[in-house]
């Protein structure tokens, strides 16, 4: 019996340590965003919302937040459309060098964002394209398309082929089949990949940093705030980003993963 108790205690301690390791930094960040002092360091001197007020009053921060939102939404839509079409093509048609094409499509997942960002920077320079939100968006499409492809492709099975055939058999042309049957049928994985792409784009730093100039995204703006030293306002900005990610995650959970579980 004592062995069993020991086992229970050890697993509990291990679990607590694990979650502490993952979430403690975030908890500290959020806690000190309420710090009633000029420095986000121990000891905690009482709660205030003035740093949040300062964040919302900072037009550069708000502008960068809007920029991040635009880039995340538009690059994710493009990445999902491209990823879906690539998955559809590879899952449904006989293509030359299928394995190679699949490998090429997913390969960017293994390349570091720094390398991708450098490559894009050099290429845009050579083409004479100035850094802007557009180039950041293109960068995010590059990193998120493989992800969307991989998620959607993994959910495209042979059992759906007959469903598409049935639609075709009942008089639907290729576009009708795609829009009325395939897309709605794949909606859970399409939405899942979209939300994942949005969160990845939302807090991506290195590509946004290297490929933007005057208009920047939120992580880049936070980074430039950090250069002037630690400040609870930075914590407040970081906490806002974190909260938006949480909201996105909840929406994804409610919209997508519940539906997948139902099936």
């Amino acid at each position, binding site marked *: 019996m004592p062995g069993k108790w020991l086992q229970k205690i050890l697993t509990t301690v291990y679990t607590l340590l694990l979650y502490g390791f993952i979430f403690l930094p975030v908890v500290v960040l959020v806690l000190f965003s309420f710090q009633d002092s000029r420095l986000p360091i121990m000891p905690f001197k009482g709660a205030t919302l003035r740093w949040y007020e300062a964040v919302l009053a900072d037009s550069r921060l708000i502008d960068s937040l809007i920029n991040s939102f635009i880039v995340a939404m538009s690059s994710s839509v493009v990445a999902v459309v491209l990823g879906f079409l690539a998955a559809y093509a590879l899952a449904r048609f006989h293509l030359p060098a299928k394995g190679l094409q699949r490998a090429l499509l997913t390969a960017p997942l293994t390349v570091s964002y720094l390398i991708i960002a450098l490559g894009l920077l050099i290429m845009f320079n050579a083409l004479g394209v100035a850094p802007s939100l557009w180039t950041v968006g293109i960068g995010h499409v590059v990193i998120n398309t493989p992800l969307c492809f991989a998620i959607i492709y993994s959910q495209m099975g042979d059992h759906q082929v007959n469903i598409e055939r*049935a*639609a*075709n058999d*009942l*008089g639907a042309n290729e576009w009708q089949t795609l829009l009325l049957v395939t897309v709605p049928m794949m*909606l859970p994985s399409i939405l899942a990949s979209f939300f994942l792409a949005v969160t990845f784009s939302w807090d991506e730093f290195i590509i946004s940093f290297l490929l933007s100039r005057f208009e920047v995204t939120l992580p880049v703006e936070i980074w430039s705030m950090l250069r002037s030293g630690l400040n609870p306002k930075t914590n407040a900005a970081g906490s806002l980003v974190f909260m938006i990610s949480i909201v996105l995650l909840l929406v994804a959970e409610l919209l997508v993963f519940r539906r997948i579980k139902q099936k």
Partner: protein
Amino acid sequence: MTATVEIKQVSHRFGDFTALNNINLTIEAGSFAVLLGPSGCGKTTLLSVLGGFLHPTAGSVHLGGTDVTNVPPAKRATTTMFQDYALFPHMNLQDNVGFGLRMQGQSKKQRLSKSAELLALVGLEDSKRKKPHELSGGQRQRVALARALAVNPDVLLLDEPLGALDLKLRRQMQDELKAIQRRIGTTFIHVTHDQEEAMAIADKIIVMNEGQVEDQGTPESIYLKPKTVFSAAFMGEANLLQGRIDKFADDIITVNTDLGQFSLNKKCCVNSNVNVNDNVKICFRPEHVLAQDNTMDNNVNLGNTRVSDRAFFGSHQRCQLLADDGKTYIANLPQSQLIKNDSVMQLRINSESIVVLLA
């Protein structure tokens, strides 16, 4: 609506593999035809060719006299009921059933009334707002049938539709399919590997093997007068005795077999081109073995056998009889006959029911 289906010299190859080898077939309008054969015999390939999902390597398909070989599935007057039902998972039943009508550009009102009518035909009128995942296998089956029939096809193609159902439900669905086919008169072409299912529903059975048509005809003719050894063995149980034609005389043929020589009426030869010295198989069904007290004159006696095993099957007893040639023959004998294991009994067969097939 209904149409005659003609398949003319259709062959299909997948790479080096010949899936269909020169198939010629006519299926009358309004009949219920069954393509029967073991897996890999080409029956599903043939159905795909009929549905337009596969373009045959050679040959042509005609519906109601029109060549449709190059007509895509969407434009063909056939609909397919798929083995896995292939219902649209994101649509409720009435939208599933109404999908084909929507593609034809019919109004929502027309679609709803037609899908209600068809859901009523298959007994699911109360579930029209349910999604497919809320249904049982048998119900999904019915929705697939209603959806396929909604567009008034001339020919309905059914790809092993009952394969996933349990035995009792399968029997029930067979009866329903047949009743619905009688009512609407559409030509049904049904694929199965289950010979009992084929006999239960078919007007015409087409036995296929290795990409070829082995035999075709009514269930009775295929069971009682199979044209090939494969057809005989696939369609129910058959005892096969090795033999050789000894001589032909008028209406009588004489065969030498491993169990002795005997004579049969020429009608027993279903192949007209049998010659003296041809190797043949003498085929007889287990129920054609005569009971010991049967005094019918017209019988062939294959000598004494030893009962190596017997089992009681309710309507009959199934006995394994070990004959002199070292082979075991199956006999279904009446319940009333007293049979003991290891007892000796004569193997006598009603000679009119024997079929002589080229080996």
